[in-house]
Every structure is written in C-alpha cells, then in structure tokens.
C-alpha cells in the first residue's frame, strides 16, 4: 500500500514539476494521471516497475480513493460559510446561472457524443456497451 501511494504521489509530483517547468496551463494531477496511464501500459514490459503495479495493490488503492471521491470535495464546499454575504446578494442569479449552465452543458456533451458515435459505428457495435 505504501509503494502504491508513493506511485500516485510521484506521478502527481512529476506532473506538477512538468507543468511548472514548462509553464503549461495544464494542472499537475492531470499530467500525473497521463504518466500513470503510460506506466500501466508498459507494466508488463518494464521489469523494474514495482510489483505493486501488477499484483493488485495499486488497483486496490486507486479503487479505494475513487470510491470515496465525493468525500474529498467536502472541505472546499464548506467554504460556503465564508461567502454567505455574496450568496445573500446574488443567490438567485447564481442559482439560475449554475443550474441552467449545468443542464445545458450535459445536454450539449451528450448530443455531441451521440452524434459522433452514431456517425462512426452502427448500432450493433455498441450494443454490448448499452447493456
């Protein structure tokens, strides 16, 4: 478990370092995700990679983190107590903007995804995914 956690942190650290050094607007953890994905693709070929990447240890740590992903947003959300005044003043406008924008964004992404996949594949190809 320690090695697996180290792997996650090392990928994030490398990602942050690369983002800073190259002045990329890309967030460090996102680069870290790509790095870990690259390592996983190579895990059978690169013998020096730690065995935790193959024996299910890393898998368990990742699953544990992702199963509790919503917990991690709680501290930032509690920040609402700092901005109660803003919400009193602009609450209605903010609510309309966020609700409408979230629904529109979901519908637009959905429509784009469905349109492109319908152009690409026939229905029987995607049948297994739809189950």
């Amino acid at each position, binding site marked *: 478990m320690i090695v697996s956690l180290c792997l996650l942190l090392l990928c994030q650290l490398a990602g942050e370092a690369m983002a800073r050094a190259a002045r990329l*607007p890309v967030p460090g953890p996102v680069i870290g995700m790509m790095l870990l994905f690259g390592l996983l693709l190579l895990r059978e070929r690169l013998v020096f990679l730690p065995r935790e990447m193959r024996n299910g240890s890393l898998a368990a740590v990742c699953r544990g983190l*992702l199963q509790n992903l919503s917990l991690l947003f709680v501290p930032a*959300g509690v920040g609402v107590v700092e901005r109660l005044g803003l919400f009193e003043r602009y609450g209605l406008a903010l609510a309309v903007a*966020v609700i409408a924008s979230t629904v529109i*964004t*979901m519908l*637009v*992404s*959905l429509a784009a995804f469905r349109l492109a*996949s319908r152009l690409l594949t026939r229905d029987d190809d995607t049948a297994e995914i739809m189950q």
Partner: protein
Amino acid sequence: MSAVDLGLWVYLSRTPLLWLTLTLLAYAGADRLSAAMRRNPLANPVLIAIAVIAVILLLTHTPYPTYFAGAQFVHFLLGPATVALAFPLYENRAIVRGSLLPMGLALFAGSVTAILSAVLIARAFGLPKLVLVSIAPKSVTAAVAMGVSNSLGGDAVLTAVMVIITGILGAIIVTPLMNALGIKDWRARGFAVGVASHGIGTARAFQVHPIAGTFAGIAMGLNALLTAILAPIILRALGL
C-alpha cells in the same frame, strides 16, 4: 459551560484533529443516510455533509481557516485521486480507444458550453466582474478551478463553492435526465456528467455503472486540462 469545559473546547477547536474527525464523521453519516435512501440522487452525501458541517461552524463561530487546517488533509487527496483515475482508464482502454472521436467532440463542445453559458447567464443578471470570472471554471475539479480563478483575478473560495454546487447539481440531475431522454449508452451518460460536473458527477456515475464512471473520470480529467486553456481565451473574448 464551566471554565474547564470551555478550556477544553478552546483547545480542541484549534486542533486539526477535531475538524478532520468532524469531516469524516459527517460524511460517513451522510453516506449511510444516502445508502438507506437507496442512493436517491436527492440524498447527495456531499450536500448533506457540507450542510451539517457549515451549521456546526456557524453555531460555534468557528472561522473557515480554522476548520480548513484540519480538513486540508482530506482536501489534499483530490490530487492523488485525480492521478488514480488512470486505473479505470487503463482497465477500460479497449472501449475508450473505440470512442476517441465522440469523446473529443463532446469534450470540446461541453467545455466551451460550460464556461460560456455560465458567464453569459450571470452577466445577463448584471453580476460584477469578480463573480463572472469566479464562475467561469465551475465545471472542473476544485483544485484546478481555484487555480484558474486565481490566475484570472477571480475569488478562489467563491469558485470552490460554485464548483461544489455544480458537482452536486449534476450528480442529482444526471440520472433522471438521462432516463427521461432514454439514453442507454453508459459511455455518453458518464462522459456528459464528467464534463459538466467533474468529480462529484464522476462519483455518482461510478455508483450507477462502472463504464459510466470510467468515462466520467476521463471527461473530468480532460476538461480540467481544456478549461485551464479555454477559460482565459473565452473571458478575454467577452471583454472580462
């Protein structure tokens, strides 16, 4: 309260231990409640936990920085959790590889829509520039959105709150909305909620179906990247 009790409270309320414990307790309780209500989207564990903690902080007059000194240990894990998304991505790489074009198109369309619609609607209500900038990156994961907001002259704390509200909303809306539209493609369902509502939407998608969760996770990661690039461009184009 006697002097001894008050002394104990003053001591404990300043240590990270108390607020970290409260954060985990509130979430554990909220998660139980959500499970007892058969994961009804309205019983969103994040929403319940935040409400409980916020009320406690207000009643005890605890400043947010004091709370955050303890809760930061949980907040920190957002980074490693983003890296961990590589794992479901790897496990489902065959399906992902077959969906690259739909993903690219949905990502770009969704990312632009998320920024533009939020800012334009808020501007129509005459909200000040500070709020408009702060709301622009609302659809991406908290740490990234706060960074984007900060670098563009927004209010990072307001951004974080808007991010969480967007996430909770998406998580509540997505299942009824997709069912009403008759969408059975788990890839599309997951991807749409990941673009619109980042990690909280992703958490909800994982509850519903592993494929939906994987696609939501990819969408969340890629949208964090794209929004960091697009938000400054779009805001400049709008003259903000």
